[in-house]
């Protein structure tokens, strides 16, 4: 069942100088208990999309529906339920906790507001929450302030605050990008375990395909470029066989923790030209045509529609020449053959 849908959403911020909207006719469906990852570079509109989903931004055009109802047209009671059911985990655990509130106050406020606990039953629920996110469930810990916690602990606390409200959809906006690489997997695992426990759906926003591949397995990936969805499809399919040049560029940019692959790529001179990384979007034709290595005249004039592509159903791409995009394996091939690394850091042939 579709829990939340975004249809034909277009948005411009009033202060934007450029004519290009931050979101341009974006469509997105989130099924109950599913994961949808939104991937793109800084400034591509992925955070704006998250803000539209949680109702912090009202888009100029288009609709956001929660359980089939327009979120900007809900009764007071329905609105309260929507607000509780759709939660967000922000990027920066240093900024998303009130420095003047203790752990107890941080966790309790929302629980009391939504009548999930009473003042009398709060304590035991707080301990249960702390334990569920792997934090110390002691009275002493409840009295701590955010500055007394490490980055990883803060993000766990944010997650506990979110999960206490028993949401049905969580928008995780770069939820692990501020954390040490060594902590990321632990926090991702925590979020995934919450998913199975609470039948949660996630909209997982990130610029890093490494993290996305780990989190969105079995789910869907949406790739955005300057407000436009350029490709979407089942996670594994999209990563192995990207159909849009921008998706390939993003995949190819992720540092590979394998020095042999890194050296080989260096000699092959697959250097990303600066203009591909920082170029402005094109105002006419395909948005990516300014930066696309395969762009032809057609691309600079006609905007490609988002249409089905490839053998697998539900893999859509907005590109006139998707067949020019190489498979990821073609680039990382050598690591896939010789399992040089004892731990075998390669795409398995499933």
């Amino acid at each position, binding site marked *: 069942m579709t829990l939340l849908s975004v249809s034909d959403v277009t948005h411009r911020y009033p202060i934007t100088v450029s004519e290009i909207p931050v979101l341009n006719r974006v469509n997105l469906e989130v099924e109950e208990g599913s994961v949808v990852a939104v991937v793109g570079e800084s*400034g591509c509109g992925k955070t704006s999309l998250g803000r539209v989903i949680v109702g912090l931004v009202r888009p100029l055009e288009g609709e956001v529906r929660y359980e089939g109802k327009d979120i900007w047209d809900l009764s007071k009671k329905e609105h309260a339920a929507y607000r509780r059911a759709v939660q967000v985990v922000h990027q920066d655990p240093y900024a998303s906790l009130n420095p003047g509130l203790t752990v107890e106050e941080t966790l309790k406020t929302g629980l009391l507001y939504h009548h999930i606990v009473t003042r009398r039953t709060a304590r035991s629920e707080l301990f249960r929450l702390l334990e569920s996110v792997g934090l110390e469930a002691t009275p002493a810990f409840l009295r701590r302030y955010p500055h007394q916690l490490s980055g990883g602990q803060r993000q766990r606390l944010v997650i506990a605050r979110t999960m206490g409200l028993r949401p049905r959809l969580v928008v995780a906006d770069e939820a692990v990008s501020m954390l040490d690489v060594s902590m990321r997997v632990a926090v991702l695992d925590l979020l995934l375990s919450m998913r199975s426990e609470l039948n949660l759906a996630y909209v997982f926003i990130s610029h890093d395909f490494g993290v996305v591949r780990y*989190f969105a397995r079995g789910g869907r990936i949406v790739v955005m470029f300057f407000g436009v969805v350029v490709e979407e499809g089942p996670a594994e399919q999209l990563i192995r066989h990207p159909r849009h040049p921008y998706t390939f560029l993003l995949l190819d940019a992720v540092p590979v923790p394998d*020095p042999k692959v890194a050296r080989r790529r260096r000699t092959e001179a697959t250097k990303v030209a600066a203009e591909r990384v920082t170029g402005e979007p094109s105002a006419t034709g395909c948005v990516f045509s300014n930066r696309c290595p395969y762009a032809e005249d057609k691309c600079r004039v006609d905007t490609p529609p988002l249409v089905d592509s490839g053998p697998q159903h539900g893999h859509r791409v907005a590109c006139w020449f998707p067949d020019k995009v190489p498979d990821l394996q073609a680039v990382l091939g050598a690591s896939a053959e010789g399992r040089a690394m004892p731990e075998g850091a390669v795409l398995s042939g499933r």
Partner: protein
Amino acid sequence: MTVGREGAGPALIEVDNLTVSFGRLRAVEEVSLTVAEGEVCALVGESGCGKSTLAYSLLSMVPPPGVVSSGEVRYRGRSVTRMSRKQLNEFRAADVAIVFQAAMNALNPVLTVGRQVEHILSSHPDAFATAGEGREYFERLLQLVRLPPGGVWGSYESRLSGGMKQRVAIAIAMLLRPSALVLDEPTTALDVLNQRLVIDILRDLHETLGTTIIFVTHDLGLVAEMAERVAVMYAGRLVEVGTVDEIFYGSRRHPYAKALIEAIPSVVRDEALIKSIPGQVPNLLDLPRGCRFGPRCELARPACAEAEPPLVSDRDGHSVACYVANEMLERAVVAP
């Protein structure tokens, strides 16, 4: 003992048994490390392991109340730790330059990039024959960091994107032609495309100008892409030093370095092979007895909790501070 690679270029920077203390807390403890001229060296570890403090001490800029309580840092044989303020002013930027973490926030918002470059040139009048020559050199650096030469000079930082600011900061750090560039988390806070660009640029600087690069990171992916040599730190101490191949593929490895590598979510790696590291980094004021990684280590034995394992080097200069790993070494040495 100085840990280094035999047969590499001459030593440029030597860290000799360095301890940096913040009151009772020892952020860097008995660290010895040699960086050869022309090398790309990574300092790796989790938050709070002392890697940034070590990087700052290379330029003798440990923030107060931190002090070097023993040992020293030498640059071409001269003690940096004992330099006077005046000597340090000459040394920093001209010999070893640093790009701070979040360097995109380090630019002055009310001066154009060009004005900031002119300030540096006027306070180091000996660096170039004429100021015009200095400006020309900066234009060349802008090309190396792949920024349009004309577009940046008259810009304020607010007109530049995060990735562009980072590259401007790198160009400014390179302005006085330092032999070595220290970078603290050069790719953190950048998206993957800008990360890739910064990696390529630093490799270019290394190859075209021969600059020695020392960078601090928690990301082993970045290490694999850039580094030739790697020093892994844990709770203030070096636990493994070796070439990038020894760190990633060696048979004798520190369990912590191995765990760090296995914790990276990557596009090319099966999720079943990705493991998080259990437990947490210890409090530096309340360290476990013996090996500091012991409580989180799957190979730990009773002996590990008794005394701190020493950093033991093999013939190639690959050093590991782990009892279990170093048993292999003894066997290998004894075997023939």
